[in-house]
């Protein structure tokens, strides 16, 4: 009952004309920010903070939050069309999204991304609204051993993303782990693999590696052949531009998967949307009837990660609003915004400012609808980009990559790294090394090592802390299942063949 009255109150705030305007401004800006690689929601929110000082905090929060979850919608656009992840979480969307585009289903991919983002985003808000306080308590019981188990689950995805050669997939992952360990060691302050360079003290930025390997690597590989063969088929007519009923039907589980996985991982401070996307993608592939098709352009391969990175925003707002604990860079700046507006973020903030919470929740429902309406008609427009001939498209990709990297760090060093990873991406494609495990290793490496060392410090070296606690044990068990799944499949096929041979 309380929830309904709160929600009613919230809508009365969110539907005020001025707040609707701020909501629209936020989600629109968010979409633009998401599309542009290198421009992230955190920096944009920081830039716009001064603008919000004249507004009531609720309106300011409605706009800034709009930027936050709007960006997740935009990130898939360049990922699908150009293999350039607009946002770090969109990396996973590149895997099947770009392949769908190459198969002529760009419009369908964009549509599925938008629909999945809408469904999952709405579920995320629902979760925020209904489950926030109890979830916050559960989130607190999550600590390093559970994070470690979660990372192991993520790494188990390597098995699922391996493709033909397990050895090469593992080697790619180990390479990713190596890059992840570059920089200052948090616990002992030792510098690892910095080669004496001040720029490497912070390691190599994930976006640099992702854009280099995915976008540039792909372009260089395509440039091997001259003309004709690599022109992407562009679908004609509205029907071709939208997902078919069959495709949508195939994504049923993915919508659910993405929503739940994304939201839960979002609630955990420190686990980000990239991890959520990977796990959701891996889960989808694990339960799929045609896992070998993942990576060639299956709609569920787009729906799952896209959903996950959207519902993750709803989840990330849980610790922020219920405990005043920021889980990521973007929520940290939102926290700063609260402070600058004179609010006191913490366990009592919702109690003291109920209209803030309910106004935000209601505006997120509205915002997700706005985003769906905003994004769907843009699909035919965006799909036209693929009509450009490759010799126009590729320099554009070069340009966007450099702009994306340079604007976020103003560092030529990062541009050099971009170039280097572009070469690596090309070589990996040529030599048949799968690229997804490298990205996975890079994303997880740091967190996993930290979680392991923190856990062992907590237990004074007792390894059992890693598997004695219920949540950690469950996650480790699921990882084990996932790793053994291909073996089960092979065993099953062998069994069937054996029966057929005998019969």
């Amino acid at each position, binding site marked *: 009952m309380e929830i309904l009255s709160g929600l009613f109150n919230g809508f009365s705030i969110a539907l005020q004309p001025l707040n609707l305007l701020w909501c629209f401004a936020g989600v629109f800006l968010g979409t633009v920010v998401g599309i542009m690689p290198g421009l992230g929601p*955190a*920096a944009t*929110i*920081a830039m716009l*903070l*001064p603008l919000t*000082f004249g507004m009531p905090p609720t309106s300011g929060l409605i706009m800034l939050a709009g930027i936050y979850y709007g960006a997740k919608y935009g990130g898939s656009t360049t990922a699908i069309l150009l293999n350039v992840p607009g946002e770090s979480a969109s990396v996973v969307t590149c895997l099947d999204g770009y392949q769908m585009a190459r198969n002529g289903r760009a419009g369908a991919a964009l549509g599925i991304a938008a629909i999945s983002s809408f469904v999952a985003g709405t579920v995320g808000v629902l979760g925020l609204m209904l489950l926030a306080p109890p979830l916050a308590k559960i*989130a*607190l*019981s*999550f*600590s*390093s051993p559970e994070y470690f188990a979660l990372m192991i689950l993520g790494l188990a995805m390597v098995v699922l993303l391996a493709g033909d050669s397990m050895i090469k997939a593992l080697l790619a992952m180990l390479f990713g782990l190596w890059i992840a360990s570059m920089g*200052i060691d*948090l*616990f*002992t*302050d030792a*510098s690892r693999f*910095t080669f*004496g*360079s*001040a*720029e*490497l*003290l*912070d390691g190599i930025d994930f976006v640099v590696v992702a854009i280099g390997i995915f976008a540039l690597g792909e372009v260089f590989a395509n440039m091997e052949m001259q003309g004709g063969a690599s022109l992407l088929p562009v679908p004609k007519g509205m029907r071709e531009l939208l997902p078919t009923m069959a495709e949508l039907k195939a994504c049923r589980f993915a919508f659910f998967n993405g929503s739940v996985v994304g939201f839960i991982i979002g609630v955990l*401070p*420190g686990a980000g949307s990239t991890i959520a996307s990977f796990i959701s993608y891996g889960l989808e592939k694990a339960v799929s009837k045609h896992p070998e098709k993942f990576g060639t352009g299956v709609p569920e391969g787009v729906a799952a990660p896209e959903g996950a990175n959207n519902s993750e925003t709803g989840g990330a707002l849980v*610790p922020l609003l219920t*405990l*005043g*604990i*920021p*889980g990521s*860079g973007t929520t*940290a*700046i*939102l*926290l*700063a915004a609260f*402070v*600058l507006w*004179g609010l*006191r*973020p*913490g*366990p*009592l*903030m919702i109690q003291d400012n109920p209209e803030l919470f309910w106004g935000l929740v209601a505006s997120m429902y509205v915002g997700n609808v706005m985003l769906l309406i905003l994004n769907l008609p843009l699909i035919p427009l965006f799909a036209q980009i693929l009509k450009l001939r490759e010799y126009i498209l590729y320099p554009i990709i070069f340009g966007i990559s450099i702009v994306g990297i340079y604007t976020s760090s*103003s560092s030529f060093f990062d541009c050099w790294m971009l170039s280097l990873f572009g070469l690596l991406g090309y070589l990996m494609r040529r030599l048949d090394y799968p690229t997804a495990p490298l990205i996975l290793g890079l994303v997880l490496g740091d967190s996993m090592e*930290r979680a392991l060392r*923190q856990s062992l*410090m*907590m237990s*004074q070296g007792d390894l059992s802390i890693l598997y004695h606690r219920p949540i950690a044990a469950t996650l480790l068990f699921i990882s084990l299942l996932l790793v053994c799944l291909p073996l089960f499949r092979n065993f099953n096929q062998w069994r069937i063949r054996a029966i057929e041979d005998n019969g």
Partner: protein
Amino acid sequence: MLDLSNSKKTGMACLFIYMLSPFALHADFKPTKPIECVVHTGPGGGSDVLARFIAQTVEKENLSPVRFQINNKTGGSGVTAMTYMAEKKGDTHTIAVFTGNWLITPLTRSETKVSVKDMTPIARLVLEPALIAVKSDAPYKTLKDFIEAAKKSPGMLKQSGGSSTSRDNVVRQLLMKSTGSNWTFISFPGGGERISALLGGHVNVMVIEPQEAGEHIRAGSLRVIAQIAEKRLPGFSNIPTLKEAGFNIPNVPQVRGIVMSSGIPVDVISYYENLFYRLSKTATWRKYLEDQQFEDGYQKSAELSYFIDGYTDQMREILKEAGAKVIR
């Protein structure tokens, strides 16, 4: 005419210009384009929030004809920002927010090529005290209780904090050494994770900033057992400071202030000194300090320079004793 050698001629010329310089001093410097304010944290980090508030207050109180623009130069615990500042020799429109980190990082990191010694100190602004907090259902009512428990089971109790050269760990090292006790330090990269670890019962104690802790204390989930400050903070008047509780260790404040690159003319330095002096006296600033529970640590350029030297030497000794590899 006197037959002066070349160097003597130069000397006379300099003297002449120097005598004219009072005029230069009185020709007031005024900024003509937006002032770039460099911070070493990302958006939302400690220095970033302070810088944004400074920018906001400067505009609100009309302290400057131009506005301040924040430039985030993250990386290497301040190394990227310091390197950037070092390249801006003589730039009169670029300032930076420095913290204790800037002074400590060059001591242990061989990759740093520059340090605050290559920059011009302008003003020290705030000292950030800290609190020692435990979960509210923990059996420790005072810091002494905690230390006793730590002595009984050495290495078993845990503290969550930042990196091993952060203030959290420095305080821990000092306390452990002066009391002969021992407990583990577990690093978490973000404040959110540190607080979660404490609230979730995975660690026993934490050094926390007052504004981070405030709400949790109000909600009853955390208890403060000591303060790390020169004198008691207004919001925590019944919690003893370390010295009052009998722990004779040097006070290690988290300090933030303003520096500029090298090669800045004297009048420009006075301008900014004055600007920040006026800032520190505004009611908006005073309220901010009160809300955030900061100590007003305003110091002028010369005093700040002296403070920096003293702080660096003190940190060097502390780090050496804690076993860190000090290279400068």
